[in-house]
Structure formats: structure tokens, C-alpha cells
């Protein structure tokens, strides 16, 4: 009986909050009752300590619902008895633990299952080395000094084989890299760390600093203050460093024959451990691509988005219109419960035999039950034709058909597309501001985003879908077959039994697409007063009015009765010009129209503005708008009026709002010059103003609301999490529908 091997044993698990780790912890607690104690090394997060993380993220996960059900009220007690949480971090010296905890581990631990890793293919070099190499070796070194000389079970990946071709045996690596270069893991790590220091130094050169400052200033435009610009420049520098480190890491990995920095660093860790092994018994487990479970803890259990899922989702969303890849290439997928069982069984075997030589097991499907890229594509496509995703507007998304062209061809095409879009984009920046331009820019931006994502996926995943190798799993199968029948039933991992089509279409794809709890949603932190804003446009949204008729009303108050009709006629004559100008660009129209206020005295304008509230505005009010505003106000939201209207016309609204962001006219010699002081509050400028305002006031735009009526308000609506189109013009209506935004019809007072 397998359970016997664990009798009275203490196991230390790292990576217990990860996808594999959680499933492993659950399985051990459920099926190994003789196990004495499970030590879990958990890193505290920004908001939660290790204990809290364990309770909410691990125990709170659906992975435990089965055990919870089986144990009922004894669940908590059982967990408390079996599990000991250690708040620490594999990246830190001595795991970040105190002497007492370390002594206990040294005395007690029989097995270490090290499954903590950074599974990011394009991680920056420093993070990948730190986590996958330094972290692993730190723990490994520590364990060598422990009293019990614990069995070290290292979870690696089948893909450490890199781009080597043919059958990859379950063996320790030789001293050559997959491309055939002689490789000393320690010297290599030193070299990589030198690269990191070099990049950091390069990021602090004067030329770069100046360039980033300029870029930050340009981005923030006129609304940025000095402190904001500096902060932005620092963000840009960090982004630059990160980008460099990603590039340098992957460059090095590829030159040595690995797909990316992930497999490269995982392999370096393996190699280094083998060199420094001493007398510690070592088992290396190399799973392939781990995906959702076949049966345990329940079919289709998955956490987060695993390796193949972003690709599948991008395909289902119609973003990936073409993808390179060899249709015959193996996509080596294994369900998570198979990997867990293999770990448990391999560990049990290690506990019993304490191997003198390192043992390697590859948990992979390629040899015994191959899934080829074209079959995967076929099953996935079939599924999404039957069960299409819906876009924000509720319409089914049509999945593309792939022709499996060469990777070079696809990437070249995408690059040409990107170049074209870039040229179009730079032309668009030179076009006058306006809705047409905004529309065009939106299209270009969307096209660019699509092409970029496609290119990104092609680069990231390209190596994985052009595999020329097969991972052997003979030893793993032998391990399985060595189990008595009873254990085989309790810990199945015979990959040959998985029917890929059924698993994909009935278990995996429904799990990754429809289950809302698939990704554990971060609960929004409690709303603080003033953190959420409700932003209202005024003209057309709260008031059925516009700049021209409001001006006309004010002007008429100034004119003697007899002259009024004449003046109205001359204004009507100019209306087509203004209309055209507005169609082209709201900002241009505002600049042109506000010249009409030239020569007005500010005091008189303010008085008229006040009078117009009763005489003009109230009659044109949308009571539902006011109701919405008051509702936000009583919910404690910060009310912001963001309007292209002039300040003196919005003066009467100031009691309603916490902030009024509006246009202002320049004054000279006590009268208005007719020129705007600052940019017109329209189009992009609105979004920028809003962003700057949000930074200054700590408003969280992603949880804020915005109400507006015109296509020129699109950038402002896009800037918030809860946009509402009110009485939208045709183009805004279309845009709102596409994005699945709320659309409201507000009527005039008494209408």
C-alpha cells in the first residue's frame, strides 16, 4: 500500500499556492491519511500574510470542496492537525525563516517537494534566474545540512530538453546545451547576473534619461506637473529595463538551444543541483504542459490561465487570425491530476528506496498518447463553432480558419501589417483633432493591438508548436505499472487512457471558457469615500442644450427687443459653418465659437450665467440625469462635471459637484479675449484631463462612472470602468453597442 510509505513522514512543499501545488496538497491530505505533517512554505502577499493566503486562496479554492464535503465539520480540525504554515520565501536566505523554524525543519522533514517556480515564458532575466535557479539552489543547499537528509523531489519541466530533436529520454542532462555548447551552470548564472547589472547601468545613462523625460512630458501633455512627469519617467525607465532583460534573457536562451528563459533557467537549476548534490537523494519530475484535471478533485478543475489557454482564448476571440506551427508537431499536454499522482508515487518510491543516483521521470503524453497540433486545432475549432464566445455586444464570435503557414511567413506578414499601421498611425497624429480622427485612430489602435498580440504569441509559443522531439515517458509508465491494482485506482496517471477529444470538448474547454470562477477573482477592496467618481458631461447629457443655443440665450438678454430677430437671423446664417466644424472636430469648433465672447466682461458673464440657470438651463434639464447624479452623491461618490462649456455657465452647478473641470476664457484688461486659456475640454484632452485629475485626487477610474452623449466623449468614456452613453449620437451609440456599454435615454423636463 502506497500510503504506508508515508507513515509518520513529514513533507515540506513549496509552491503550495500554485496550480500544481494546490492540487498536490489536496491530494496528499485526502489520500495519504498516514502522513504525519505537511509543511507549507508560503510567501506573504502584499495584502495577506501566509496564513491568510493559505486560508483564503488555498482552502477557499474549489479544489478543496471535495475534501471539505468528505470531512464535514472535521475539516478545519483535520487541516489544523496536518498542516503547518511557514511564512517565508524560497528567494530569501534561509527561506526567510527564523532559527526555531529552521531547526524544526531540519529535525522533522523527510521529503521536500519543490514545485515553486516562475512559469513565465517572457520573464525578465533577473526574475527568472532568481526564482528558478537561485531559489531552488538555496533550498537545495539548506536541505543538505538538515538532520534527516530529506528526499528532494524537484518539479522541473519536460521542455528543459529545449530544441533537441527526436526521443528525449528520462535522464539527467549531459554537460552540453541543446545546441551542443559546453555549459557550466554556475559560470552561466554568474554571466547572466552580470548581464542584469549591465542593463541596469545602461538604463541610468544621461541620454536615455533625457529621452524618457521627453517622452513622459509628451505623454502627460500640458496637464502634467513636474512631480508627475518625474514619476512617469521612472516608470518608463523600469519598463525599459524590463524589456531589455526579457530580450537579453530570451536571446541567450535561444542561442544555447532553449525555447525561452523559462526552460533555460529550469534546466540550469537541474544542472546545478546535479553538480552540488552531495549525498542528498534526488528525484526530478518533468511534467509537460499541465492543464485541467481529468477526474480529480473534480473533472475540469483548473486555476488561472495555463500555458495553452491564452492561445486558445485568443483563437476563440478571433484575435489570432493566422498562426504558424507545424500541424504534425506534438503538443504535449498532461492533466494536472496525472502529474500530482506521479509526484505522490515517485515520492513514495523515493522514500522507500532512497535512490543513490538521481531519478528522472517525465510526465508527458507525446510518446504514449500523442496529441498533434492539427488535432488540437480541430477539436478546439469544432468546440467553438458549436459554442462560440460572445462579444461585448452579445454577438457570437466567428473563429478563424488556420492554414498552418510557416512561422516566418506569418511573422513577416504581421510585421508588414504593423509597419503599415504605424505609418497610418503617425499620419493620424498629424490630422486635425476630431471625431473622424478619433475613429480612425481607434481602428488603427485595434488593428495594431491585434497584430501585436499575434506576433507576441507567435514568438512566445512558436517554439512549442514546432517541436521536433518526443518526450519519453517509459520510466513513468513503468512506475505506474509497478503499483498494486488498488494504488493504480487511487493514483492513476496512465496517459494512454485519456481521450483527447472528449477531455478537450467536454472538460477542458468548458472549464476555461464558461466557468466564471476559473480565475479566482480578486475581491475588490472596500470602496473608500472619494475613491470612486461619477463623471458627468453637461451639455447634451444633464442638460439638453449646446454651446450655440446657450450663447444665443445670453446674447439675447443683452440686446434690445427690436434687434433680437435680426441678430438671430445672422446667427442662423453661421450655423452650417459651425455644424461642419463640429463634425470635423469638437476642439476646433470650441476654439472658433468661443471667439464670440470676445469683449464680454467676466462679471457680467457670471451674472448672465446665473440667470441662464433659471431662464435657460432648468427648462432643458434631464431630470433622470439629476436623479443619477444625486444617487451617486448619496452613495458617497465624488461628483465631477467635465464639460467643454465655459466656467461661468457652470457656476450654478458647483453645489452639485465636488469638482468642476471646464474650459476658461483668457482675460485681458478686464474683458475676455475670446481665446481659451488652455486646451479645449474635448476629445482626447478630456481623457487626459480626467487622468491627471484622477492622479491628483486618488480617484480610481477603473471603478468610476462616466456619462456622456457624443462621440467626442469617447476617450473620456473609455477611461473609466463604468461608462454610460446618454442619448448618444449615432456613432457613439454604435461604439457603445460594440463595447457592451450601458445606453440610456434621458428626456427633457416635462417632456
Amino acid at each position, binding site marked *: 500500500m502506497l500510503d504506508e510509505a508515508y507513515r509518520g513522514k513529514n513533507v515540506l512543499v513549496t509552491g503550495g499556492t500554485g496550480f500544481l501545488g494546490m492540487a498536490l496538497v489536496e491530494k496528499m491530505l485526502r489520500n495519504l491519511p498516514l502522513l504525519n505533517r505537511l509543511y507549507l512554505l508560503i510567501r506573504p502577499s502584499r495584502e495577506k500574510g501566509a496564513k491568510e493566503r493559505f486560508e483564503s486562496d488555498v482552502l477557499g479554492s474549489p479544489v478543496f470542496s471535495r475534501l471539505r464535503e468528505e470531512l464535514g465539520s472535521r475539516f478545519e480540525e483535520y487541516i489544523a492537525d496536518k498542516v503547518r504554515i511557514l511564512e517565508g520565501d524560497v528567494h530569501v536566505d534561509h527561506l526567510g525563516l527564523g532559527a526555531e523554524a529552521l531547526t524544526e525543519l531540519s529535525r522533522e522533514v523527510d521529503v521536500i517537494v519543490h514545485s515553486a517556480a516562475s512559469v513565465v515564458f517572457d520573464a525578465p532575466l533577473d526574475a527568472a534566474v532568481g526564482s528558478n535557479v537561485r531559489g531552488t539552489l538555496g533550498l537545495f543547499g539548506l536541505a543538505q545540512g538538515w538532520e534527516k537528509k530529506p528526499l528532494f523531489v524537484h518539479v522541473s519541466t519536460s521542455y528543459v530538453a529545449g530544441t533537441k530533436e527526436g526521443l528525449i529520454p528520462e535522464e539527467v542532462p549531459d554537460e552540453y546545451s541543446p545546441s551542443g555548447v559546453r555549459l557550466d551552470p554556475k559560470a552561466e548564472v554568474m554571466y547572466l547576473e552580470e548581464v542584469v547589472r549591465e542593463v541596469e547601468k545602461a538604463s541610468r545613462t544621461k541620454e536615455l534619461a533625457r529621452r524618457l523625460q521627453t517622452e513622459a512630458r509628451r505623454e502627460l501633455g500640458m496637464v502634467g506637473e513636474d512631480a508627475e512627469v518625474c514619476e512617469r519617467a521612472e516608470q518608463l525607465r523600469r519598463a525599459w529595463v524590463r524589456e531589455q532583460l526579457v530580450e537579453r534573457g530570451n536571446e541567450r536562451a535561444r542561442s544555447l538551444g532553449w525555447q525561452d528563459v523559462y526552460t533555460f533557467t529550469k534546466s540550469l537549476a537541474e544542472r546545478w543541483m546535479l553538480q552540488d548534490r552531495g549525498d542528498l537523494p534526488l528525484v526530478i519530475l518533468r511534467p509537460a504542459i499541465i492543464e485541467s484535471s481529468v477526474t480529480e478533485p473534480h473533472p475540469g478543475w483548473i486555476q488561472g490561465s495555463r500555458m495553452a489557454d491564452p492561445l486558445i482564448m485568443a483563437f476563440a476571440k478571433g484575435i489570432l487570425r493566422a498562426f504558424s506551427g507545424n500541424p504534425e508537431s506534438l503538443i504535449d499536454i498532461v492533466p494536472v491530476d496525472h502529474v500530482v499522482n506521479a509526484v505522490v508515487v515517485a515520492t513514495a518510491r523515493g522514500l522507500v528506496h532512497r535512490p543513490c543516483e538521481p531519478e528522472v521521470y517525465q510526465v508527458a503524453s507525446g510518446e504514449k498518447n500523442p496529441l498533434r497540433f492539427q488535432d488540437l486545432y480541430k477539436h478546439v475549432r469544432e468546440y467553438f463553432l458549436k459554442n462560440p464566445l460572445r462579444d461585448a455586444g452579445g454577438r457570437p464570435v466567428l473563429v478563424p480558419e488556420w492554414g498552418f503557414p510557416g512561422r516566418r511567413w506569418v511573422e513577416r506578414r504581421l510585421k508588414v501589417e504593423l509597419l503599415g499601421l504605424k505609418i497610418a498611425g503617425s499620419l493620424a497624429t498629424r490630422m486635425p483633432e476630431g471625431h473622424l480622427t478619433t475613429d480612425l485612430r481607434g481602428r488603427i489602435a485595434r488593428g495594431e493591438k491585434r497584430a501585436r498580440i499575434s506576433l507576441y504569441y507567435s514568438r512566445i509559443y512558436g517554439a512549442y508548436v514546432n517541436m521536433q522531439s518526443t518526450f519519453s515517458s517509459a520510466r513513468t509508465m513503468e512506475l505506474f505499472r509497478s503499483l498494486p491494482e488498488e494504488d493504480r485506482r487511487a493514483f492513476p496517471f496512465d496517459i494512454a487512457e485519456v481521450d483527447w477529444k472528449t477531455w478537450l470538448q467536454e472538460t477542458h474547454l468548458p472549464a476555461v471558457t464558461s466557468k466564471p470562477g476559473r480565475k479566482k477573482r480578486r475581491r475588490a477592496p472596500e470602496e473608500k469615500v472619494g475613491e470612486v467618481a461619477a463623471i458627468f458631461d453637461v451639455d447634451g447629457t444633464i442638460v439638453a442644450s449646446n454651446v450655440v443655443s446657450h450663447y444665443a440665450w445670453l446674447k439675447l438678454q443683452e440686446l434690445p427687443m427690436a434687434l433680437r430677430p435680426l441678430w438671430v437671423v445672422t446667427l442662423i446664417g453661421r450655423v452650417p459653418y459651425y455644424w461642419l466644424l463640429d463634425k470635423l472636430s469638437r476642439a476646433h469648433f470650441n476654439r472658433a465659437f468661443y471667439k464670440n465672447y470676445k469683449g464680454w466682461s467676466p462679471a457680467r458673464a457670471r*451674472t448672465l450665467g446665473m440667470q441662464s440657470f*433659471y431662464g435657460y438651463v432648468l427648462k432643458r434639464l434631464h431630470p433622470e440625469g439629476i436623479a443619477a447624479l*444625486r444617487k451617486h452623491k448619496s452613495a458617497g461618490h465624488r461628483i465631477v462635471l467635465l464639460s467643454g462649456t465655459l466656467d461661468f455657465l457652470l457656476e*450654478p452647478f458647483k*453645489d452639485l459637484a465636488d469638482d468642476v473641470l471646464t474650459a476658461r476664457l483668457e482675460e485681458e484688461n478686464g474683458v475676455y479675449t475670446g481665446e481659451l486659456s488652455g486646451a479645449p475640454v474635448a476629445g482626447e484632452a478630456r481623457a487626459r484631463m480626467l487622468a491627471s485629475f484622477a492622479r491628483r485626487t486618488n480617484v480610481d477610474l477603473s471603478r468610476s462612472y462616466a456619462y456622456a452623449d457624443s462621440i467626442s466623449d469617447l476617450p473620456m468614456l473609455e477611461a473609466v470602468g463604468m461608462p454610460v452613453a446618454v442619448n448618444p449620437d449615432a456613432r457613439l451609440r454604435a461604439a457603445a453597442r460594440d463595447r457592451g456599454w450601458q445606453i440610456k435615454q434621458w428626456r427633457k423636463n416635462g417632456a
Partner: protein
Amino acid sequence: MSRPGFTTILEKNSPPMWFYAGDVFHYEKLPEGTRVVYSPGPLEPLPEPIVAIERALLEPMDMEPLHELLRPGMKLTIAFDDLSIPLPPMRRPDVRQMIIEKVLEKGAAKGVEDIHLIAALGLHRRMTEAELRHCLGNKIMSCYYPDRLYNYDAEDPDGNVVIGQTDRGEEVSVSRRVAESDLLVYVNVNFIPMDGGHKSVHTGLAPYSSIQHHHNPHTLKNTCSLMDPPNSAMHGSINRMGRIFDEHVKVFHIETTLNNRTYPSVFDFMAKPEYQWSTVTKANFLATQKTTQMMPLAVNRRISHSIKAPHRITSVQAGATEPVHAETLSNNYKQMVVPVEGQSDVLLVGIPYLGPYNVNSIMNPLLVYNMLLGYLFNLYRGKPLVREGGVLIGTHPMSAQFHKVHHPSYIDLWNEAFPETNDIYEIHRRYEKEYAHDPWYRTLYRNSYAYHGAHPFTVLYWAAHALDHLGDVIFVGSDPVNTSRMGFKRANTIAEALEMAKDVVGPNPSATYMHLPPLFMAEVS
């Protein structure tokens, strides 16, 4: 010498009595033995009001003459009552215009330049330009409006200031301009005894934070009556504030009383008791009644609100607030008080189309409530005309019409609170703070012509004393749904209402009809 007020007992063959019922009239024969109290005739006006004003300013009570208080470089503020008094608004020239012109003349003679004129409207709606013009005349308007002549703003965050606290913890806040003035000249129109004295400043020039201390149901329950300041808890609170205010600002109070010449001579039936009506007068009444019944309500309303009263000034007194007000009250009472012997079980009263809060506006159900239970019930000194546990019967159609611009918070309160409760204490507890601080009402109060968000509440609290005293209230001819929403009973005729009253006061009730207008107050012995 004018005709004093008097009481008659109706006989079997007495003519029917007419009642005000909003914009129409109710006309019904009352049972034999009903006591009818008529108001006194109008007092003789001052023959030369301008001269009287001049004399009051020259020989003020307990204070130096006005011209001695004025000096160049000083800050002078002139505040005046808003258009809620007198009712109906008086014909031009308004008494405020006559007095303020005189004060400005003296100011100019003394070289005072920093002069502001403020309409002391408290939580009432702002006055329109036309309304200000009506009260003050063209000359003042063209010199001072809008920069130095404006409406008081109780919600201007920079425009009000706390000047102290009474010994009972009541906050005393007033207009900053007033608090910083070297002299405040307050021009009062004392239409009823409730007005004037310290109340002028502490309701007219004070924000909600101060007003809430005396305008609440608990204080008003102990205000017996509103028209009898020495026995009014509200006036007690206001006088406490007034004494604190007097320590900060010098006030030169000018108060006037008017006679009760309320309606133009076309409505002669109003001025005469029914038994004195000639055939022509009766025909005039019946024709008027018929016409008002046939015309659309909006037209009726427009006509009635266009009426300007031929009030005339009966006295002017100036000087320190308290002695001036004492003199004013005694002059008020001369015009208004009618001695009546004993209380009765049932009091009948007609509810007019006009109250202080619906000048050029609409009398909505909350204002009807306020008019009957607040103003009309309180028209007494000593004891109410109706006994404790008695029944008050009023005539009004009580349609649920509201003025959208003037009374937005009334509309919401009517729709939000009244379907839930009509208990004023509960309404006070549950809704007042929210309404008082609602940003939309604040916006409308400051920039449109809306009453303050808290105003409908004070209007309801006016009824606190009546609700405490009465056994029942019955509306005659009122809308059934609206009446029951208010929590009252209704009847089609006064006869029916009197029958209903018997359930409360017993089988042989004594009834008194308080025959208004003109307004008067009963002194019950």
C-alpha cells in the same frame, strides 16, 4: 374710528355664509346657533406716511436718531422683509420702498458709500427682479441692483458666519455681510403679530444651521400661539439669539403696521357681513362664485395672484428692536384683535388661495395644511377659539398641484414621505437632514427660485401646536386621496362635516365660524 370686530349668532333665517376655498368660494347655510366672528373694519391710515417715517427716524425709541448713526466710510446694510408679507402684496408704492428711499436719502446726506440692500428671505425662494422692483421701485433698483441689492443666500458657504451660541446651545449664525456691518437697518412690514422683532434677523438672514433650533416640531408644539410672542417657544428661542446678535451688530429696526384693507372694492362682498349685503352685492358674489367655478384653475389662479391689496400704513416706529416691537405689537393688535366669549367645540374657517409661501405661485397640499393648522388655527391670543379636543373644519379643494420651480422639495416630500407616514415627528426624524443638505435643492435654492430643501418641513411643523390641541380636522370639498394622504377626514358640505364632528365632540356641538378675510385674531375670554 373704524368698526370693531364683532360676533353674531346665526338665526333660522340668517343668510348662507361664504367661505374661501382656495381659488373658489364655498357658500352654505350654517345651522341655527352657529357663532360667526367678523373682523374689525380697516383702521384709519396715517394721513401722511412719509412724514410719519421721517418722524420715526428722527425720534427713534431707545436709540440715537438714524442720521447720527451714519458716517462716511461705514458699512451699512439695509435688510427688508421678502414678498411673503403683506398678503396680498400691496399696491405700489410698497411700504418698503417708502422707508428705504428715506434711509438711503439720509445715508447719501451723510456720505455713506458702502451700502448693501438684502432681501431677508431666509429659506424662502429668491425674489425675481420684477418682484424686487415691485417692493422697492425703479429708483432703488437702477442704483443698486444686482451688485449691491440682492437676495440673501443661506447656502453661500462664505456668506454666513457663526457669531455665538445661546445658553441653551442654539447656534447663532447670520449673513456675513450683516455681521460685518457697522449698522443694520431692518425694514419690517408687520402684517401679523408673528412677524418682526428679533425674528426678522434670525429667520430672514440666518442659515438652516441656526433656523433649525426654533423651526422644529418640538419647539412649535409649545408655541401657543404663533401670534402671541410672549407665549411662544419659537419666539423665546429667537429672542435668546437676538440678544446675542445685539452684542455684535447695532440694529436700527424700523417696523410698520398696515390696516386690513385687503381687497379692491370690486370684491365688496368681502368687506361686509352677509346680512348687510344688498341685492347687487349678492349678485356680485354669486357671479364671482360662478365664474371661478367655471374657469380653469390656472386662469383663476392668474387672476387672484394679480390682485394687489390697497393696504395702508397705520403706524411706523423705529429704534431698538425690543421696544419698537412692543409698540408694533400693540398697534397690530389694535387692528386685529376681536374679543370673543368662550371657546367652542367646532371651529369653521375658509382657507384662502394665498399664503406667505405661494405668492405668485401655487398653494399645494402641504401649504394648505400649513395655512389651516399653522396660520389660521394660531390666530388667537390666550386660548384657542376651539376647545382642546375640539374639531377644526376648513374648506379647500386640496388638489395635488405643485409649482415645479418654487417647490421642488415639496413635490419630493409629498411623494416620498407622505405615502409612508404623516406624522410630523417621524418626518422630521427620517427626512429633514437629507432634504436640508440635498445638493440639488441647494442648487435650485441658490440659482433658481426654489424654496430651500428644509422649507417644506418647517411648514409642516407650524401645525405642531394645532395637532396637539385638536381632536380632529375635517376638510370640506377636498380631494379624497390627497386628504387621506395627509391623514385627515373629508366631507362634501359643512353640514356633513358637522355631523362627523359629533363623533368627536358629542351630539350638540357649539360651532364658531371665523369669517375671513380680512385676517383677525380672537382673544378668547
